[in-house]
């Protein structure tokens, strides 16, 4: 159907109409569809009579979660609601849209609701709705874009109905969960939704700027269903009357939206007034040009200038990264993400591919965890179509897929997946014959990729061609071929470009010179996305400087903002170092020593003192220095561990507190990391005193306590396999068996979840796991810990380390 032909009037509030008719409102008001059909029909009729073109069915909360205590199933309630609506609507040629609200539970990782569970609940409602005669599906009053995605996929995979989505925004143009207007628009248009818009929360006046913004980011028809102004906090009455409401809807009609109606506080009289004026206006279709947007649920990156893609989340050639993935250390990956964003990355490449690992499962988990703490869009990097699909399905936003090439079997596998989930895609200019030397041939492969993308419905603006970097010390002429290809593919096909640059300098000394210069040339040739290590200041500097010189950083504002502070900090740092050096020389020469004495525990500059003060950089520096003269294991056992012990004792005595304990642990960790890198470089096995599985038990989503314990244990040299929160007993058993673990730590915050703790311990015993279990958490006592079958009760993080030390005989 063409939604730009004429403006269509929706209905108004439903709940208040039920109250007016004195309907008995239970926990699930939709039960009235079955118990009091005459009242429901009467409300529908009142909106049909008022002039609605589309009425919403009374099915908003008829999902399995909210109906769990109901006598009726969601299918029964939905079927009744839709049938009644059709009975009223059909004679007048009015369309019935099926209204679907939020599930009511919170999606993981913040809550317990799994994406797939949300999908199933929506699916159940939608298939029943379609069967009963619904003509449109409307997901409304939504606040979490990821939950919306579950609903959209459920609709598209199981029904043939058009899908509308309206979300509820607050005054800051975000939903309560942080979804922004722009991110909603970009994500849902890419997902193939038929119309988007806003409903509830605010009145027409407050929603106007948000709808304006939405129009900038979408070509879709727009739905506007505001409240009748704002409620009075004392009486709950809404402030705007029917005529005034209709009048304040005019700016939306002028703007060219397609669907208008009302939410809380509105009634049939409001719709009648609205009906009177809509005939004077027509929907307007907007053309938003060639913008390519990538986004997370909260942040949109508009690819109109050069952006840095962080390449560090990738295990290739990184022993520690591989080990972290094998040990399920997702925090390690998160740390890499935070570090790169702080260094200036606008997009993060995510690659978790190592042999023997279940890549789709791990990819899904990493994507879920990353998007819970960062708002940077992700680039999904894998050669496994299943891993790509797992990532895209659970990704909140519009992602970039890395990558396809000129081979048809790859294109025919990956492109349908990218299109289905609305992702942009990277195309490498290579095929089974390898990378052509001449730029014309690379451009030709790009042409084939663009053609194939068109077949699958992917527009050129969402194609990122990688013209590929060859090593200049081996193939010198080819460096310029890459640059020429970048310029040509953009000109010829209207695509965007992407390039990983660091391969250019293999085999040459001082690689940074070559890399930064090549990057600068590539940007000048038209590069849009540079895949780099953002922690490399020279590479980031090249991008920032290019943006100034090419006039894209207007007024050099971003450059100054970034570098003025850094320059000042560097100066301060230098002065500090100078002062420190002077002080050292004077103290050391008094002792007749000329190096930093890292052994003397009382020395202000010993490792021990750095750890005690929580100084990570100083600890790392001191360990680095000591590695030239001392065995790595001796440093751990004679320096780092005793320092942590001392901090722990002070903590027990109440002389130090949690923040200090944790800062000291972080400082020790910085020292451990130096040693781990040293060992990895010298091909020695990394140090681990033993493996410990940690989990916050099923049902519990508060994991701050578990994370504190984990930090401390890791810094005593243990390998912690962190299973996260809300962990099923079977997952704990599986991890213990897989990693042959002798100690398990379980955490539970609430009395209600201690039962899951007991269940987990039982499951471990029943599975015959030969391991000890320590438990902790606010509501536990030593007596209770023993009662539920634990081997140890740990009152705090320090004690958990003592238990581990006792058990592993350290």
């Amino acid at each position, binding site marked *: 159907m063409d939604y730009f032909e004429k403006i269509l009037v929706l209905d108004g509030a439903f709940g208040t109409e039920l109250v007016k008719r004195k309907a008995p409102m239970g926990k699930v008001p939709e039960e009235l569809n079955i118990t009091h059909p005459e009242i429901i029909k009467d409300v529908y009729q009142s909106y049909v009579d008022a002039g609605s073109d589309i009425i919403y069915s009374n099915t908003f909360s008829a999902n399995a979660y909210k109906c769990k205590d109901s006598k009726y199933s969601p299918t029964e309630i939905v079927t009744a609601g839709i049938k009644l609506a059709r009975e009223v609507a059909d004679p007048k040629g009015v369309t019935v849209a099926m209204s679907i609200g939020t599930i009511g539970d919170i999606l993981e990782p913040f*809550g*317990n609701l799994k994406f797939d569970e949300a999908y199933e609940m929506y699916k159940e409602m939608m298939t029943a709705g379609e069967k009963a005669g619904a003509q449109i599906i409307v997901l409304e009053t939504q606040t979490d874009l990821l939950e919306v995605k579950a609903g959209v996929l459920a609709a598209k995979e199981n029904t043939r109905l058009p899908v509308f989505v309206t979300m509820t925004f607050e005054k800051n143009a975000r939903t*309560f969960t*942080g979804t922004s207007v722009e991110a909603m628009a970009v994500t849902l248009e890419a997902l193939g939704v038929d119309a988007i818009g806003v409903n509830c929360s605010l009145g027409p006046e407050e929603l106007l700027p948000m709808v304006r913004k939405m129009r900038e980011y979408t070509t879709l028809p727009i739905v506007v269903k505001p409240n009748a102004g704002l409620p009075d906090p004392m009486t709950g009455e809404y402030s705007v009357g029917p005529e005034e409401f209709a009048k304040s809807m005019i700016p939306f009609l002028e703007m060219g939206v397609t669907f208008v109606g009302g939410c809380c506080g509105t009634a049939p009289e409001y719709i009648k007034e609205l009906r009177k004026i809509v005939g004077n206006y027509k929907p307007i279709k907007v053309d938003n040009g060639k913008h390519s947007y990538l986004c997370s649920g909260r942040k949109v990156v508009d690819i109109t200038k050069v952006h840095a893609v962080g390449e560090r989340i990738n295990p290739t050639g990184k022993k520690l990264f591989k080990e972290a993935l094998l040990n399920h250390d997702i925090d390690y990956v998160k740390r890499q993400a935070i570090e790169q964003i702080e260094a200036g990355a606008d997009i993060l490449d995510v690659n978790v591919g190592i042999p023997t690992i279940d890549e789709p499962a791990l990819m899904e988990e990493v994507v879920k965890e990353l998007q819970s*703490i960062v708002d940077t869009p992700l680039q999904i990097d894998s050669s496994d179509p299943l891993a790509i699909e797992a990532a895209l399905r659970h990704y909140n936003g519009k992602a970039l897929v890395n990558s396809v090439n000129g081979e048809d079997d790859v294109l025919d596998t990956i492109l349908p997946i990218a299109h289905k989930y609305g992702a942009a895609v990277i195309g490498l200019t290579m095929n089974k014959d390898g990378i052509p030397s001449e730029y014309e041939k690379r451009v030709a492969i790009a042409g084939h990729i663009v053609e194939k993308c068109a077949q699958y419905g992917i527009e050129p603006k969402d194609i990122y061609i990688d013209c590929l970097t060859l090593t200049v010390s081996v193939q010198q002429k080819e460096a310029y071929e890459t640059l020429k290809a970048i310029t040509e593919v953009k000109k010829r096909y209207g695509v965007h470009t992407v390039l990983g640059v660091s391969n250019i300098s293999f085999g040459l000394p001082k690689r940074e010179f070559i890399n930064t210069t090549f990057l600068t040339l590539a940007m000048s040739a038209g590069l849009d996305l540079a895949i780099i290590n953002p922690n490399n200041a020279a590479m980031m500097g090249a991008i920032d400087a290019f943006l100034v010189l090419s006039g894209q950083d207007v007024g050099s504002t971003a450059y100054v903002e970034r570098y003025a502070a850094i320059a000042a900090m560097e100066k301060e740092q230098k002065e500090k170092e100078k002062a420190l050096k002077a002080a050292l020389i004077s103290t050391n020469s008094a002792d007749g020593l000329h190096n930093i004495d890292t052994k003397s525990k009382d020395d202000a500059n010993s490792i021990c003192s750095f750890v005690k*003060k929580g100084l990570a950089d100083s600890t790392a520096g001191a360990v680095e220095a000591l590695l030239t003269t001392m065995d790595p294991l001796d440093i751990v056992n004679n320096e780092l561990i005793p320092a942590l012990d001392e901090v722990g004792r002070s903590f027990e005595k109440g002389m130090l*507190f949690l923040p200090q304990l944790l*800062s000291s642990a972080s400082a020790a960790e910085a020292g451990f990391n130096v040693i781990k890198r040293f060992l990895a470089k010298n091909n020695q096995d990394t140090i681990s005193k033993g493996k410990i599985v940690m989990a916050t038990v099923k049902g519990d989503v508060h994991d701050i306590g578990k994370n504190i314990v984990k930090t401390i244990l890791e810094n005593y040299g243990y390998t912690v396999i962190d299973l996260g929160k809300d962990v099923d007993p079977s997952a704990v058993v599986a991890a213990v068996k897989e990693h042959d673990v002798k100690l398990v730590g379980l955490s539970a915050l*609430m009395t209600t979840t201690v039962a899951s703790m007991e269940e987990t311990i039982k499951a471990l015993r029943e599975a015959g796991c030969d391991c000890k279990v320590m438990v902790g958490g606010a509501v536990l006592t030593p007596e209770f810990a023993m009662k539920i079958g634990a081997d140890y009760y740990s009152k705090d993080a320090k004690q958990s380390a003592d238990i581990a030390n006792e058990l592993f005989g350290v």
Partner: protein
Amino acid sequence: MNIELTIDDKSEILRYLGFRNNELTKKIEDDIEDCIRITNEVMDVRTVWRLFDISYNDEGTLVGDMGVLLPGKSLVKHLDGTKKAVMFGVTIGSAFDEAVNKLMISDPGKGVVLNSCGITLVEKAADALQFEMDESLKGYKTGVRFSPGYGDLPLDCQDFFISSIDATRRAGIRLNRNMLMNPVKSVTAIAGVYKA
């Protein structure tokens, strides 16, 4: 609501961290200052409240026209016979939770300080809301607040607290299936209304 953390809240922030007149290191001092800044930057304080008639029976306290039961003796004792009470919800928003989660990864020592700033702020916001309600209740004022999980009032009542004041739609406070609130730094409570 116009509210923010200031350096005057330091002692309260330290109290939640377990400090008692201990000497502070430079790092803690800096962290507290920076965490106060972060808190003020990311907080999104929202409040919602409603006045209810209440009555009592052998099982506990009855709220509103429908007489919904809040079971247990503790609340009955706490309300001390008043016939009116306010139920309210306060949150400092989900962006704050994300900031804590992020900091717990990159700098756990500072993460727990930020966490403590959040507790301080949500309690401060609840105090401010009670002050606002007292103003609106002209001649009356609200007593000490009481939340699900206190005394013998079961945590399961949280469901009713949230729905009775429409806290999900109006303040963004949601419940998971174990009756835990999201955003984490949220407070729901009931307080008796008494002559000022």
